[in-house]
C-alpha cells in the first residue's frame, strides 16, 4: 500500500506546483476497463451457440440458453456464466465474428489492440486516454497485459509484473539493491526537482521544434504527473496476490478509475492457474477458464456498482465500459490432441453504459466464419462488410466520443 509516508519521502514538490488541477477531476467522460484474456478463447463455449453445425465441435452436455436477450452456450459446468447474464445481460452486448487476420499470438494481439499488424500504431486504450479532456494523471494504466505505443507512449503507465511501479514510486527500489542507497530527503528532493525543471526549461527553449524539444516537454509532463500523484493518493499499486491474480489487478484498476487518475485501465486474465487460453490440447480447460472469468466479472460488476463515480454523481458502473476480449478464437473442430488450434475469428463482450445491452451483434456461419455486417445497424447483412478488429476499435473510440479516424465503428452497438 502506498502511504503518505512514502509519498513524503519523495519530496514535497507538489507544493511548488500550485496551479495544477485538483486530483479528483471531473471524470464525466466514459472510462474503459480492458480485460484481456491471453491465448485465444474458444467462442463456442459461451458466445457462439453453433449447435448443429457439423464442422463445429460443441460440448455434448451444453445447451442453448437465452437470458436478457443474449443467447449463449449454457452448461452445468459454468454456472457463473448463467448467473452473469441473468444479472447483467441488459447492459451487455456480445460482438461475434470479427476477424484478426493472423494466427500468431503476438501479431493477433497487435491487430486486436491497434487494428493493424504492421506496427507504428498506438493501441485503443492509449488513444482514448490521450483524447481525455481532463488530463488524467495516469491516463492509461496497464496493470497487466500488453500495450502498444507509437506516439502516445507518454500516456501509458505500466505497473510492472511484480509491483515495480510501487517500489519505484515509494523508493523501496533503492533498498532492493545489492548496493542500496537512501532516497534524498524531502527538502533535497524538492531542490533537485526545481533544478531539474529549470534545466528542462532551458533545454526545451534550445531544442524548440526539434525532437529534443518534444522530449523535454514530455519529460516535463511526466514530472508533473509524478508530482500530482504525490498528493494524498490511496491507490494500492502493488496489492497482495489474490487467486486468481486478476482480482487484485482489478482492485488497482478500479482505484485508478474511481479517483479520476485514469481514463483507461487494463488487466489480464490468463485462465485458471494461469494456464492461458491456448488450448492446443485438452480443450476442456476452456470451460474452467470461462467459469472463473465470469465469476470474476460478476464480482467486478458488483464492485463497479459499489464505487462512486469521480464525477460525484452515480457510480463507477454508470460511466465505465468494460471490454472483455481475447486475441484470437479457436478452430471449429478438435485436433488429434482433443484441443483446438488458432482461428482468425473471435468475439468480444462490451459491458456497461453506452452500449446497446441485451444484444448480440454479428454471427458465425456453420464453418465458424464471421458473417458480413451492416455497420450502421449492426445487423448481419449479405451486403455488409467482414468485421475486423479495426471496426471493434473504432467502436470503442466512438463510445469514447473520440474520432475513430479512417476505421469504421459499428454504429448499431452505440446506445
Amino acid at each position, binding site marked *: 500500500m502506498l502511504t503518505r509516508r512514502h509519498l513524503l519521502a519523495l519530496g514535497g514538490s507538489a507544493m511548488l506546483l500550485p496551479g495544477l488541477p485538483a486530483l479528483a477531476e471531473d471524470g464525466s467522460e466514459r472510462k474503459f476497463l480492458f480485460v484481456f484474456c491471453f491465448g485465444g478463447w474458444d467462442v463456442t463455449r459461451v458466445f457462439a451457440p453453433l449447435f448443429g453445425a457439423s464442422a463445429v465441435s460443441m460440448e455434448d452436455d451444453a445447451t442453448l440458453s437465452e437470458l436478457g436477450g443474449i443467447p449463449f452456450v449454457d452448461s452445468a459446468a459454468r454456472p457463473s456464466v448463467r448467473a452473469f447474464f441473468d444479472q447483467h445481460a441488459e447492459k451487455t452486448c456480445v460482438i461475434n465474428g470479427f476477424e484478426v*487476420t493472423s494466427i500468431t499470438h503476438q501479431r493477433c494481439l497487435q491487430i486486436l489492440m491497434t487494428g493493424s499488424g504492421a506496427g507504428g500504431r498506438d493501441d485503443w486504450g492509449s488513444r482514448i486516454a490521450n483524447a481525455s479532456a481532463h488530463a488524467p494523471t495516469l491516463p492509461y494504466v496497464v496493470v497487466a497485459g500488453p500495450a502498444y505505443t507509437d506516439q502516445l507512449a507518454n500516456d501509458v503507465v505500466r505497473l510492472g509484473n511484480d509491483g515495480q511501479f510501487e517500489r519505484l514510486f515509494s523508493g523501496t*527500489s533503492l533498498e532492493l539493491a545489492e548496493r542500496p542507497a537512501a532516497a534524498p530527503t524531502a527538502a533535497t528532493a524538492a531542490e533537485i526537482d526545481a533544478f531539474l525543471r529549470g534545466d528542462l526549461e532551458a533545454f526545451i527553449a534550445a531544442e524548440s521544434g526539434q525532437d529534443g524539444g518534444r522530449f523535454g516537454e514530455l519529460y516535463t509532463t511526466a514530472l508533473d504527473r*509524478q508530482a500530482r500523484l504525490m498528493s494524498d493518493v490511496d491507490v494500492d499499486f502493488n496489492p497482495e496476490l489474490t487467486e486468481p491474480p486478476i482480482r487484485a489487478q482489478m482492485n488497482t484498476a478500479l482505484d485508478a478509475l474511481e479517483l479520476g487518475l485514469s481514463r483507461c485501465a487494463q488487466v489480464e486474465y490468463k485462465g485458471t492457474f494461469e494456464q492461458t487460453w491456448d488450448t*492446443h490440447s485438452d480443450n476442456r480447460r476452456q470451460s474452467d477458464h470461462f467459469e472463473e472469468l465470469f465469476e470474476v466479472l460478476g464480482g467486478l460488476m458488483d464492485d463497479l456498482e459499489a464505487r462512486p463515480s469521480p464525477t460525484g454523481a452515480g457510480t463507477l458502473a454508470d460511466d465505465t465500459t468494460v471490454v472483455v476480449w481475447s486475441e484470437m478464437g479457436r478452430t471449429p473442430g478438435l485436433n488429434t490432441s482433443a484441443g483446438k488450434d488458432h482461428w482468425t475469428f473471435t468475439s468480444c463482450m462490451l459491458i456497461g453504459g453506452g452500449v446497446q445491452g441485451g444484444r448480440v451483434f454479428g454471427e458465425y456461419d456453420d464453418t465458424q466464419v464471421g458473417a458480413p455486417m451492416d455497420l450502421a445497424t449492426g445487423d448481419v447483412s449479405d451486403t455488409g462488410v467482414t468485421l475486423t478488429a479495426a471496426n471493434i476499435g473504432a467502436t470503442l473510440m466512438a463510445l469514447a466520443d473520440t474520432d475513430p479516424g479512417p476505421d469504421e465503428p459499428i454504429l448499431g452497438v452505440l446506445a
Partner: protein
Amino acid sequence: MIALLLACHGDVATDSRPAADEPEVLESLDGPRLLRRMSIDLRGTLPTVEELDQVEADRTSLPALRDAMLEDPRLEERLVRMLNERWHMRRDVYDATWWDFGLDYTQEYEFERSLAEEPLRFVARVITEDRPYSEIVTADWTMANPMLGDIWPVDYPPGETGWQPVQWTDGRPAAGALSSNGLWWVYPTTPFNQNRLRAAAVFRLFVCEDYLARPIEVSAATLASEDVDPTELIRTDPYCTACHATIEPVAASLYGFFWTTQYSAAEMTYYHAERELLGPEALDVAPAWFGTPVSGLEELGAQIAVDPRFGSCAVETWTSLLLRRDLELADWETRQRLKASYDDADGRVLPLLAAVTDTSSYRAGAAIEGGDRQVTARTLTPDQLESILNDLSGFEWTYINSPQLDNDTMGHRALAGGVDGYYISRPIQDPTLTWSLVVQRASELAGAQIQEGGAFPSSPTRDEVAELHWRLYAERPTDTWLDDAMALWEGVAAREGDAAATQALVSAMLRSPRMQTY
C-alpha cells in the same frame, strides 16, 4: 524491402513527409556531441574529457576516434544489445528453466541471458572480427560462456573465462546462427505449428521479409465445404500458397531442432540429426529456399547467404539500428550508397557501420526543413544508461544477481522503455512517467555510488562541476547553469553535508535531458 514498405504503407505518397526528390536540410551535431553520440552507440560509454577536448579543438580528428571505437572490444556488447532490438532474444521466460539444468535460483538471470545471447554474440563476433557477414548463416562455430560450456554440447576451452568461440560437439550442421540453440529456444515450435513460425523468423531476421505482417483472411479462402482440411488448403488455395509455398520448404529443413517432447531440457539442448528426414514427410514438401532445393541446414544457410535480400537486409538492419528509426522511401539514395559500401567491402559490416556514421541522417542534430522523419535526439535505452553509469563509476543496480535495468521479472527494463522481446519489440523514444521514475532511482543510486567511490570530488569547485557538465553532456555549461548547480550543491551541503550535496548534484545532472538524450 522498400517496395514492400510501399505495398504495406500505401499512404507514403500522401502524407506530409517530403518525397524522395525533395531536399532535406539537416544541421549536424557539433563535433563533441557527435563524438558523444558515436561513443554511446559504439562503446556504450561517454567520451573522455581528453577526447572531447581533442574534437572540440579539431573536428577532423573525429574519424580517427570513430575508427578506434570500431576496434574497441566494447563494440561487441553494443552490437549484441542493438541486434537484440531486432531479434528479440533477451527474454525472461523460456520453455526450459534454470532448475532443469541443476542451477541455483541466483543464476536465473545469467542463465536466461546466456542462452539468448549465444547467437547474438556469435553475430557480433563475426562483425568485430571483420569477417564476411554471410558467415552468420554458414559458420561452423558459435560463442559460449562458462555456463553454456557446462550445460550445452560445446567445446568450451578449459581454464578460459568469458565468451569464447566454440564448436558444437553433437554433430550439428555448420550453419551459423541457424545451428544455434538460442535462436530456436526463442523461436520454438509445436507439433501443430511444424516449424512454420521458425521459417517466418528466418525470413524476418535474415532477409527482412516479415511474413507475419501479411494478413490472413480466412473469409477469402475456400471454407464452404465441411470437409476442408487446412493442411491441404495451404498447398492448394492460391491465397494460402502465396506464403506457404515458401514457408513449408524452409520449415521442412529445420527438423533437426524439432522437439518431440515439449519443455524438455534434453530435447532442447541437443541437435537431432535423425529427425531431419521428418520434415519432408510431415510437410509433404522437399526442403528448399525459394525454389532452390536444399538438403539440410548447411545448404539452407548457403542459399540465404547468396540471396540478394540477405545483403540488403544486413544494410537495412544495421542502418536502422544506428539511425534509431526504420528506413523509408526517402532514404532510398542513402540506402543504395550504404549497400554499395557494404558490397565494396565484400559484405562486411564494420565498414558499413563506419559509413552509416558518416551519413547526414546519423549526424543530424536538428532538422531545418523537411527532416521530420529523422531522429535528431535519441533517448538512452536502459542498457545504454546502465553501461554509461557503470563506466563512469562502476555503477551496479542488481538484486539477486539480476541487473534491474535488464529484466522485467522484478526489474525495470520495460518500464524504462526497453525491449522485452515479447510484447515490446522496439525501444520507446518518449519519456513516460515510469521512465522518469526509473531514471530518477538509477540516478540516485549512481549519484551515491559516484560520491562514495570518489569518482567526483566531495566538495567540488565551480570548475570541477563545469568539467562534469562537459564530460556528461559534451557541452560547455552556461554561467546560469553553473550558478544554479552550485546553488543546489551549497543548499544541500548547508543542510545535510558535502556527501549528500554531491550525491544530489550528480543525481540531478544524471537526470538531465542532456544526459538522457544523445
